[in-house]
């Protein structure tokens, strides 16, 4: 067992431990923080694999974006500091079973696949290659999904603005007329 493997197991333990704590803790804010640690651990795993770009994106999107969003919504709910009630026994057993089944299913799949040692050169794309691939129109290019996702995000943004916009005089008059 060399240093690299030890680091791998340490990171894996961090991810799994934080994940278990995230679902078992009774305080909702703590749960979010444990989720955060779990996601940071995954980013660390990417760093360990030396795919830095993916690791950085993992942090930007999940930690800087999604977890912050979750924490904000926790702040805005009342009683965010209260301990929640312990879940009912039946629920607990059911969720444990669901989790176990999921794990078993995944392990089964993995064992069937059987990883054989890949002797190909380590996969280490530079950032410009990733960028080029994103916008390439050749057979393995990602231009279509990239543009579709952009459109989706644009639509979401426009939607947000429309919801958040204060109605102007004119629209209020217009709405009132409709009601009459």
């Amino acid at each position, binding site marked *: 067992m060399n*240093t690299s493997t030890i680091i791998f197991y340490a990171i894996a333990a961090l991810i799994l431990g934080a994940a278990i704590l995230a679902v078992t803790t009774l*305080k909702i*804010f*703590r749960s979010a*923080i444990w989720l*955060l640690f779990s996601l*940071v651990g995954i980013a660390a795993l990417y760093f360990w694999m030396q795919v*830095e*770009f993916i690791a*950085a*994106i993992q*942090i*930007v999107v999940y*930690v*800087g*974006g999604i*977890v*912050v969003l979750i*924490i*904000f919504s926790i*702040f805005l709910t009342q009683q*965010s*500091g209260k301990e929640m009630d312990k879940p009912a026994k039946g629920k607990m057993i059911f969720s444990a079973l669901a989790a176990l089944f999921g794990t078993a299913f995944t392990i089964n799949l993995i064992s069937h696949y059987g990883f054989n040692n890949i002797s190909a050169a380590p996969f280490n794309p*530079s*950032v*410009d290659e990733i960028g080029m691939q994103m916008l390439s129109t050749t057979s393995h290019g990602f231009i279509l999904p990239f543009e579709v996702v952009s459109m989706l995000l644009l639509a979401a943004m426009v939607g947000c603005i429309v919801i958040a916009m204060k109605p102007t005089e004119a629209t209020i008059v217009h709405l009132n007329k409709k009601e009459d």
Partner: protein
Amino acid sequence: MFSLEGITTNVQDWLLMKFNPTMALAIECVIVILLSISLFALLGLVLVLMERKVAAHIQIRLGPNRVGPGGMFQTVADTLKLIMKEGLVPDKADKFLFNLAPFVVMMVGMLLLAPIAFAKNFQIWDISIGVLYISSVSSLSVIGILMAGWASNNKYSLIGAMRSGAQIVSYELSAGFAVLTIVVLTGSLQISEIVNAQQNGWWIFKGHIPAVIAFVLYIIAVTAETNRAPFDLAEAESELTAGFHTEYSGMRFALFFLAEYINIFIVCAIGATLFFGGWMPLHIGNWEAFNHLMDYIPSSVWFMGKTFFLIFLIMWFRWTFPRLRVDQLLNLEWKYLLPISLFNLLLVAVIAILGWHF
């Protein structure tokens, strides 16, 4: 002046000669950790003193002038006081997160130190995604602040944390765009390549007006990101006592305080690297004689000089401008900075494609 160039290779050669590679790596790690911790402590002392002196002179005062010559050891005395002080934890606080928060904030500062090039060949980790790494890791610091605000079980802290969260999340965008303009000009994310691209002139000169605009946007955005006046709503003393660190005292408070100054140093170091060429001496095109003359000044001096100039600029802002209101703060970002930086990025892309920069 003593220069840091080349020291790293000497140390590494010596270590490799004496020990096997794994041991050498471990020893290097220890050296780096010790160096960065002492850098932090030193920076904290120097920057806090500098801030107080600058503030005093801008307000026509003298500032600290009792401890040591010209008040030089004032911050040392303050640190001693903070270390001795009892660290209180509020009764209903979430003890675990309350204790964890200052360390999270501090740790982010330490991680951010990694890709900064302090001098020629003096960099901890020349990671290939340099500036992306920085902007991603710096987004973690907001978590520490939110944690501190929530765990204190205090309404001021909570409001401060919320404000700070909203502020950091929004200003990260324009800071990111400002960084991107330089990335577009350089064509690389790696810090060492960005510095090398400024061999024949810094980007702020080579990049025409758009680079200047990007620099202004960057400075504004990072001032907001580090929660400093005029964007210090998160700790607004007059309305929130101290915002997210109201309940902190003693050493934990010192860590928050230190982290604030470390963050300022880091954003200024990055600003200096991106716009002022990092450790690169002032070179003007192909004017050999002048360039050689400039090369005599060691690269670490160049780097520190530029960084401290930017830090001074940020301090100057702090003691000149009044604080913004929350709605003004968000207006400034979403209605002014963001559209301008988007437009600016487009302009820079055109310049880079047509090769109009020098």
